């Protein structure tokens, strides 16, 4: 005989619970943490490099870099001045999840740091669904990707606390209607902190670093 068992459980619950654990752990060590997400090539690692260079030792920074393979990103972060740089190779997974971050946190003595930067796998879809437990989520958009991205990837754009618009030095060369882009962002995420900048020229980076420093205090 068939019987109906009512459940109504969010399928991502297990991940969300572990994310809460991660948060408690980071929080109790007095560390401020961000999760940087973007499509591949938007400039996540460049932003981390430029941020480290501008912080110039003012904050003790650990980075955790997620990639499908290689340690290129962690190497770049370490070379740019991160006191610790851990690479997570997801082995094909298209995003970081709370379990992977949990494993990486095991390798860090969090009490030695003020700021933890987690660099997610380059992807505009999946990372939005998997909470990690960091304090703030940051999305790096870049001008050459086009101005329609908030419309195509609403899940990613609506859930972030800060939005960096990178490569603004390329605005004269590509079609990117800033007003259309920003309208798409504002519909679902009104008042999100937005930082137009260029990691190549350095324009706009100070405002971003100030936001980060203020939050990390």
């Amino acid at each position, binding site marked *: 005989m068939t019987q109906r*068992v009512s459940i109504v459980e969010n*399928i991502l619950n297990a991940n969300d619970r572990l994310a809460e654990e991660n948060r408690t752990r980071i929080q109790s060590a007095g560390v401020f943490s961000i999760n940087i997400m973007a499509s591949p090539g938007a400039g996540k690692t460049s932003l981390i490099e430029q941020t480290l260079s501008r912080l110039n030792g003012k904050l003790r920074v650990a980075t955790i870099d997620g990639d499908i393979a290689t340690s290129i990103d962690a190497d770049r972060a370490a070379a740019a001045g991160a006191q610790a740089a851990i690479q997570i190779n997801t082995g094909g997974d298209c995003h970081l999840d709370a379990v992977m971050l949990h494993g990486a946190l095991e390798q860090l003595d969090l009490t030695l740091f003020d700021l933890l930067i987690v660099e997610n796998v380059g992807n505009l879809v999946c990372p939005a669904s998997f909470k990690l437990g960091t304090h703030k989520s940051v999305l790096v958009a870049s001008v050459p990707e086009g101005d329609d991205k908030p419309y195509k990837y609403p899940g990613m754009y609506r859930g972030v606390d800060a939005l960096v618009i990178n490569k603004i030095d390329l605005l004269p060369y590509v079609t990117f209607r800033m007003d259309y882009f920003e309208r798409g962002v504002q*519909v679902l995420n009104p008042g999100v902190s937005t930082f137009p900048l260029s990691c190549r020229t350095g324009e706009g980076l100070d405002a971003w670093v100030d936001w980060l420093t203020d939050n990390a205090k």
Partner: protein
Amino acid sequence: MHELPITESLLKIALQHAEKANARRITDLHIVMGELATMVDDSIQFYWEIIAKDTIAEKAILHFRRVPAELQCMTCFEKYHPTDKELVCPNCHSVGAKIIKGEEFSLDAIDVE
């Protein structure tokens, strides 16, 4: 690609509840999936057939109930369905909306024997 860990999670939840109900077999899973949830039901089905093998959920049928997206304008409170190219309120053209429906992704019930 992320449907694999999600399907694993789905199986785990279903098996836990089946065990609590002392079930011998899970015959059906009723899954609710919002239009904005970034999941592909065909992918879940594909992984399901691989990972549910040799469990009491092996032959279970997956039923997906789709929930259309619904936004509510925070200026005029009109409820609307967003289109591909425009997210602003079709009534007053304001920005600033809340997602009322469409992000659901849950296992609502299972049928067991």
